[in-house]
């Protein structure tokens, strides 16, 4: 028996990263802008998405994938918008992976879409490590969660392109310290754009849609 030490350099999630890169190329070729919504459970991803679908639907072609460990409740709720929705049931897995996205897209003509939203599993830890091929990762953070959430879960904020404070309509009732929340977000991710929103009262949704449309326009178009 001979023993050797072999030096390698291999990212553990390389398989996921490679698949995500292929998905990203596919999305770009199809001209669809993909948004990955991440947050803890109950921050309001589905409520935001319901509103977003309703507001974008007249002018844009939209679809959504919704990840949960179990139930199809979110998909049922979102399907009322009329947009094509698919539920990804992850079983015991606490996050979405690129392979689940690829499987869930089976049969969908991506070229017929302008936006694809992916609602990740409610979890502030694991989804941070998995690239899904998205163009934009938006992290939601509700006013009831405590202003120090970003400090406790730095990676999810650090890997996001945009932060949405949600449920801002009840901020006063829960003594939400907005300045402190902003400060904490910027400590773990200097310069991250933040939008205050309320899906119920529609606060900040215009700004969110403007940000989405701007980013979509800034994304390279497919080579004809």
């Amino acid at each position, binding site marked *: *028996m*001979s023993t050797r*030490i*072999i030096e390698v350099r291999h990212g553990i999630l390389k398989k996921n990263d490679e698949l995500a890169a292929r998905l990203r190329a596919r999305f770009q070729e199809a001209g669809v802008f993909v948004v990955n919504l991440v947050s803890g459970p109950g921050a309001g991803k589905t409520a935001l998405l319901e509103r977003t679908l309703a507001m974008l639907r007249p002018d844009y072609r939209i679809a959504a994938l919704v990840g949960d460990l179990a139930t199809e409740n979110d998909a049922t709720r979102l399907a009322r918008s009329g947009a094509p929705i698919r539920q990804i049931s992850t079983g015991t897995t606490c996050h979405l992976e690129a392979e689940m996205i690829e499987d869930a897209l089976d049969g969908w003509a991506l070229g017929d879409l302008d936006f694809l939203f992916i609602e990740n599993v409610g979890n502030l830890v694991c989804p941070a490590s998995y690239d899904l091929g998205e163009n934009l990762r938006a992290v939601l953070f509700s006013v009831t969660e405590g202003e120090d959430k970003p400090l406790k879960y*730095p990676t999810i904020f650090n890997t996001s392109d945009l932060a949405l404070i949600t449920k801002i309509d009840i901020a006063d009732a829960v003594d939400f310290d907005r300045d402190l929340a902003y400060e904490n977000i910027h400590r773990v991710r200097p*310069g991250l754009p933040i939008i205050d929103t309320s899906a119920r009262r529609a606060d900040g949704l215009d700004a969110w849609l403007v940000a989405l449309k701007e980013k979509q326009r800034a994304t390279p178009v497919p080579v004809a």
Partner: protein
Amino acid sequence: MHELSIAINLVEYVSEEAAQAGWERVSAVHLKIGPLSGVVSDALLFSFEVAAAGTVLEAARLIIEDVPIIAFCPTCQTEQSLPDTFSLACPVCDTPTPDIRQGREMEVTALEVHSADVHQEDAES
């Protein structure tokens, strides 16, 4: 807790390499884990033991090197090592430093492998 799925990815990768190179056993895996990778080392150690059972990695040691966060400070114009994950600011001048140069690593750096004693060519890839 996504460390089990990470451990399974790791075991799959090493098993494939072993099958290709003809290693009989892999007794240790060296990893670099950055504080911004989202991986908890203890959870990974535990998950690895489970994932490795019955494979070429059975009973292998997982040796984790924790790497510090290094960011480029636009004010000092130099790379700085940051003490905390929860404050991405230059430790010298306190300028916020979003330009992360190291700290997201989650990678295999070395394998301790055992193969039968034959005149074997170097099977490294």
